[in-house]
């Protein structure tokens, strides 16, 4: 049988019941037929023996008084026994005395004898059973009787037995198949229902279905009950999981909303603070200038230098406030995504930087046609900060090199700005992108500490990442994705 389809329980049960019934019946029939074969054969021989005895004792007088006709008349009664082929009465010397033949073809032995002491002898020959018996009258051996019977009655009996056995076999098989179908149906219905439910489960992932277990046997009822309990538990857990997830989502949304609100508040606050700080700062600067211009000749040199320092601090504070406002703007500005040619942006920025310090020898290597998807203004601010930093931190070196390009890392496009300037210690990389965080002294490299924070915020708003590699006095490389 090909192993294409696993045989169903139903088929197996049917085969089992038919096999068991057939084997049992065949064995029983074989036993009966064998028993009948032996017993019918034995009965046949016994009947023949009785017949021979009767014939023998009826023939005694004829033998004793040598009356052949009477003996033949006695034997002629065998016409009533169609199974007897031939019979013969023999004298005490074993010579034929009177014979009976059913048909002309029948023959009788020309002479018979029995070993002394034997009363009777039977044997099977030519498909017939033969018997020779001694005729004894009042203790005197008077003669012999021979009788030959065919086995047609025997075979007819056997045929009848076989036919009956066959009928019983077929009938019993049919009944067994019928009964087994009934019982099988009862046993299998819950199993098949269970199998259907299990199939529906695996196909639809619907754990709300339940197996029907009514009318099932005790074991099946337990199985169905356990199965349904299991489904119930799975469903409960599913529900609990879904509830937990929903709850979590709700809480995350709540927290996010709270955070966003707090962030907005903070931004609004810092913006308004920065904005409002400018007016008093302008007053300080303006009145300091007015004091110097209108009353400068009345002040000594020391006082004038103090005023200059006030003004310098005021300007610096103005720059800080400007950067703060820029950072706030970067966070608040509307994003418009488009294709931006970063190479062109880099060329423009470096050209501006050259104009301010045209004496510096800086080797600029810009990869052409590097494009990114993002907000043109924000990306320009980011590039401005990164290239401005590169320009600033290479200013202490006689000759410098600034590179811009792109590369592929982990399947995504990464842009980078590289210089061979002052660099920094990677141990402080964590502080790199914090607001007002500076790794160099003000006197060494001027700056407010807002630039890289701005760049990071822009990159984050584009959904990208920014990181750096650096070594002191060997330069730094900033990588970012958008």
């Amino acid at each position, binding site marked *: 049988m090909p192993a294409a389809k696993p045989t169903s329980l139903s088929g197996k049960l049917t085969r089992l019941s038919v096999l068991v019934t057939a084997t049992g019946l065949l064995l029983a029939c074989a036993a009966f037929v064998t028993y009948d074969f032996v017993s019918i054969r034995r009965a046949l021989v016994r009947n023949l023996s009785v017949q021979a005895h009767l014939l023998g004792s*009826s023939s005694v*007088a*004829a033998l004793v*008084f*040598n*009356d052949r006709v*009477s003996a033949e008349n006695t034997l002629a009664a065998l016409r009533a026994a169609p199974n007897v082929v031939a019979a013969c009465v023999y004298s005490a010397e074993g010579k034929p005395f009177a014979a009976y033949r059913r048909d002309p073809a029948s023959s009788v032995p020309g002479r018979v004898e029995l070993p002394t002491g034997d009363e009777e002898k039977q044997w099977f020959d030519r498909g017939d059973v033969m018997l020779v018996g001694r005729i004894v009258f*009042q203790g005197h051996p008077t003669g012999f009787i021979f009788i030959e019977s065919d086995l047609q009655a025997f075979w007819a009996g056997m045929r009848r037995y076989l036919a009956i056995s066959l009928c019983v076999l077929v009938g019993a098989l049919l009944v067994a198949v019928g009964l087994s179908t009934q019982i099988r149906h009862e046993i299998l219905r819950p199993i098949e229902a269970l199998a259907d439910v299990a199939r529906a489960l695996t196909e639809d992932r619907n754990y709300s279905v339940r197996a029907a277990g009514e009318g099932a046997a005790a074991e099946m009822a337990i199985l169905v009950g356990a199965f349904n309990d299991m489904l119930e538990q799975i469903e409960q857990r599913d529900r609990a999981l879904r509830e937990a997830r929903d709850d979590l989502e709700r809480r995350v949304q709540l927290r996010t909303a709270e955070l966003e609100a707090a962030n907005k508040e903070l931004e609004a606050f810092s913006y308004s603070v920065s904005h409002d700080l400018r007016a008093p700062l302008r007053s300080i600067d303006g009145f300091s200038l007015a004091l110097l211009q209108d009353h400068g000749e009345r002040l000594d040199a020391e006082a004038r230098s103090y005023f200059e320092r006030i003004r310098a601090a005021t300007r610096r504070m103005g720059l800080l406030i400007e950067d703060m406002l820029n950072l706030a703007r970067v966070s608040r500005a509307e994003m418009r995504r488009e294709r931006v040619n970063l190479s062109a942006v880099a060329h423009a920025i470096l050209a501006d930087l050259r104009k301010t310090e045209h004496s510096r020898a800086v080797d600029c290597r810009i990869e052409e046609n590097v494009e990114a998807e993002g907000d043109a203004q924000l990306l320009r601010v980011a590039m401005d900060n990164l290239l401005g930093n590169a320009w600033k931190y290479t200013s202490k070196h006689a000759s410098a090199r600034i590179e811009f390009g792109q590369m592929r890392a982990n399947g995504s496009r990464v842009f980078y700005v590289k210089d061979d300037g002052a660099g920094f210690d990677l141990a402080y990389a964590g502080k790199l992108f914090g607001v007002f965080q500076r790794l160099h002294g003000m006197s060494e490299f001027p700056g407010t500490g807002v630039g890289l924070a701005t760049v990071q915020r822009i990159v984050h708003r584009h959904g990208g990442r920014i990181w750096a590699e650096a070594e002191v006095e060997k330069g730094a490389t900033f990588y970012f994705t958008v």
Partner: protein
Amino acid sequence: MKTATASRKGENGPNGRGARPLWGMIQAALCAAVLLFPLLASGQQSRPSEYQVKAAYLFNFSRFVSWPATGAGDSGGSFAICVIGRDPFGPVLDATLAGENIGGKKVIARRVALAEQATGCRVLFISASEESRLREILAALDKSSVLTVSDIAHFAERGGMIQFVLQGDRVRFEVNLASAAEARLTLSSDLLKVAVMVRKAAPSGE
């Protein structure tokens, strides 16, 4: 019977062991065989004579007849088959009956001269010489349970029980059942079956 005994002796002799006594026995056996041979040869090879058959029948009739329990023939411990008148059997009857038993009684042959002497017999063969005295003999035996047999013509008609008749060279017999019944004798149906004729009427007064 005798045949078998004799031939067996002749066969067994040479197989025995021993010296003088054995040789003597062999000699005796050989002598017996030589002496008996003519008789055996005549008995076996030629057809039996009429009276040999009749003698055997006399004995065989006895086997198919039952006598009443307290019959006259019970005297003595033997079963007598008697012959009255001139004996046609000679030694044949004695030879036939030798060693036979009926109902545990030894069968013997007796010759009687008078009917009165025959009441102790079980079977009485009435010789043809007694034909003239038949009526007296039968009357003398009246009610004494003796099976009367004879080859006198019309014996069965005249009150006898079994009469031999000859059919060609075969010996057969007629039965008068009424006579037998009068003498309280029961004849087996097997015997009647092989009889030539069975008379059931009472004997006709002659």
